[in-house]
């Protein structure tokens, strides 16, 4: 934010639970009144792409799309619009995951195995959460070959891929597991020839930091992480985009993840 008095309006009714986030960023955000909101909140259910286009067409400075479903034609959105669309993921947007992504770029070359596991409540529609997993994996593991579905039933979904650009095959394993034993969590590991990275990302309902650890020959390090929910981080990014301080690349990342996902999902 460039000035303390400047704030952007948000329609807090369009996405459940949003008023909390707006209240927690009182200098940046304010609930919209009768006027159209300056920052659009878009639920990621089918049709989100059209709703995003309409909102930006109608004058919104930025749009935050929460957990979008797979969609066609994402890249047909004009660049100016795409750069102002922020995607909010329950897990992949966790600030700890960003930390993990930055830390792994130097580890990928020596990777030997990667896995990622999302535990979700029973009755979750796995199609609704796969893209979050693929985005998180892409951010931390890097480029992957198309993801194959190995087994799916109501208890879980198991998928497989390989890291790309490695001298030899590095298997990647994905699992989505349905259980009500404990709140949702995402765990991932990138094992290397002499250590690796592991991350445990808590449910988006909590601001509790993700735990991200790097293990190498000298020992293990817990990386600094922030107490902030993925939603609050995403809205702060929207404020930066609206203020012209940043541009978003989230939609092309999403399009990439959709093209990796097994056909017929969504």
């Amino acid at each position, binding site marked *: 934010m460039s000035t303390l008095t400047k704030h952007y309006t948000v329609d807090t009714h369009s996405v459940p639970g949003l008023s909390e986030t707006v209240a927690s960023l009182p200098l940046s955000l304010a609930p919209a009144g009768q006027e159209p909101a300056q920052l659009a909140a878009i639920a990621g259910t089918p049709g989100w792409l059209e709703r995003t286009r309409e909102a930006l067409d109608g004058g919104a400075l930025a749009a935050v799309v929460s957990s979008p479903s797979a969609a066609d034609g994402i890249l047909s959105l004009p660049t100016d619009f795409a750069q102002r669309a922020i995607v909010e993921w329950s897990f992949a947007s966790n600030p700890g995951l960003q930390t993990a992504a930055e830390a792994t770029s130097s580890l990928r070359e020596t990777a*030997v*195995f990667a*896995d990622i*596991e999302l*535990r979700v409540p*029973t009755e979750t529609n796995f199609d609704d959460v796969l893209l979050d997993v693929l985005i998180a994996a892409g951010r931390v593991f890097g480029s992957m070959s198309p993801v194959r579905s*190995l*087994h799916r039933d109501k*208890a*879980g979904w*198991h998928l*497989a891929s390989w890291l790309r650009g490695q001298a*030899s*095959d*590095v*298997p990647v*394993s994905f*699992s989505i*597991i*349905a*259980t*009500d*034993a*404990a*709140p949702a969590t995402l765990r991932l590991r990138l*094992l*290397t*020839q*002499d*250590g*690796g990275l592991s991350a445990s990302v808590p449910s988006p309902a909590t601001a509790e930091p993700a735990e991200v650890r790097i*293990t190498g*020959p000298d020992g*293990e390090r817990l990386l600094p992480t922030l107490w902030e929910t993925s939603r609050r981080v995403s809205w702060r990014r929207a404020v930066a985009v609206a203020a012209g301080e940043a541009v978003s690349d989230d939609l092309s990342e999403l399009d990439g993840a959709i093209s990796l996902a097994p056909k017929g999902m969504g």
Partner: protein
Amino acid sequence: MPPTKRSDEISSRIGVGFLGAGPVTQAIHLPSLSRLTDLFEVTHVMDVDADVAAAVASRVDAASSTSMDQLLGDPRVEVVAICSPHKFHAAQVIAACRAGKKAVLCEKPFAVSAEEAAEIASVSAETGVPIVVGAMHAFDPGWLAAEKLWETLPETAHTIRVSVVLPPNARFEDFATEVIARPAGGWPDYSDPEVIAATLEGGVLGLAIHDLPLVRRFVPTFDDLQVLRAEVVRPWGYVFLLRAGGRTIELSASVNATWKPDWTLEATGPDSTLRVTFTPSYVQAGSAVAEFTAGGLTKVAGPFDHNGYEGEWRRIAGIVHGTEEAPEAGALIEDLRFALVTVDGARAHVLEAAV
């Protein structure tokens, strides 16, 4: 345990004879037995290498020989521990049963084919000699505590996952080389599907086998076992995805240059989840830790003061003294069959993918 021993107690100690005195005898069993001197006494050590047999025997003040018959004929040998290479296990188990010993501890795997397993089953039934297979995790107090915590999880679990990360260990290299000749100074040629299949077989029979009996507790049947993924993890390791009895089973292992081992089994159902964290192999003191979570509440058991290596021997003492039940031979055979079906499925999967 009494701190001092009277002479009548010493004479009541159970005499143990070893067939094979390699690293497992030296680094696993002798240290475990050194903690149980009130229960056991090593009386005879046999190895085909006379120097090894003599050197190891002298450390425990036991007789040594290079002949199995000599060891089996020694009346001071009441329990036979089989720690020779895999391929000798079945014949030695059978000979020990026929020699009328009180119990047999056989290192995993106790056979390498279904035919051998069936033969063992019939000899065990005929002679009534109890057999314990050295799958130490099954005897770990942390695992035994998990059994008490897990409520209905064996019936409800839908996903079972075992993940092993181990620092380099000459023993694991041997698993890889036992079945294939390792080219001098390098790792196997993983571009050859035959080499991949052989490596995966070494992985199942050498490493995954430790936990397959535990996994099977959550898998009611495996006649329908399907291998959905079977790949090597470099430089040595594996990743398997299996379906059996309506369960999904993921097994992964990575033996790399890390200093940080991790050996975890998880079983998850709709309402509860179990996680058991084991110590690395060759570690003597201290057990696994079990965590059982249901309704957001976690119960933790362990670590306890000893682990599964010592647990095996305590179980054998109980069996010999008649205070504990011997494992059912049929269950041991099923455990082995589970491993062999996985090996066969993995081989077919790898060779099919190659065409």
